[in-house]
């Protein structure tokens, strides 16, 4: 257990970061069920104006669609 925590601390960048990873990251980080070849799920998104809604599929105009998921921090 101690070795695992030490290893995680090294991976995460420090003991506090190891706790942060365990508490806030692991519950949200997962492989997901999607595989290459699956039909891409759709979802509703909000535009930068905070009011306009659109769906992911609307942004694919008979061309490949590159999706870049992320956040600021």
């Amino acid at each position, binding site marked *: 257990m101690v070795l695992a925590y030490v290893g995680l601390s090294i991976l995460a960048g420090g003991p506090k970061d190891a706790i942060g990873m365990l508490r806030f990251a692991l519950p949200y*980080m997962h492989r997901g069920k999607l595989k290459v070849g699956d039909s891409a799920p759709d979802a509703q998104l909000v535009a930068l104006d905070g009011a306009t809604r659109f769906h992911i599929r609307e942004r694919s105009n008979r061309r490949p669609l*590159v999706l870049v*998921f992320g956040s600021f*921090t």
Partner: protein
Amino acid sequence: MQIYDDYKDHADFLTIYIREAHPLDEWRMKSNEKDKDDVCYVQPRTLAQRVAIANDFTQRFKFPVPFGIDEMNNAANSAYAAWPERLYILDESGRISYKGGNGPFQYDPKEVRAWLAQRYGEVKHAEPAAEKKS
């Protein structure tokens, strides 16, 4: 986003802003605070807060890529297991053609570039010239 500039004539791009990875009230990162362009936000609890941070980001970096914000039910994030960051390519038929690894360690834009290059050709850029020392 060099990849966007290089291939926007061939493919569509969509950045999807999801829940924050290192907000101040969760797993905060010292690097965000030390950075002179500090990136310090709490986890948004409302859509308005999420929209505000998204606008901060796009305005700060003059981000040119089309942008969408995940609703507060995190539907897009859940559907794509996206957190904290991930790349996908959907083909013309709406099927997943590329699924990238989870960030940060497995997030690799070079794989997206390689996919696009295989289909549309490689786009090369000249190396920046080294400064001459006088």
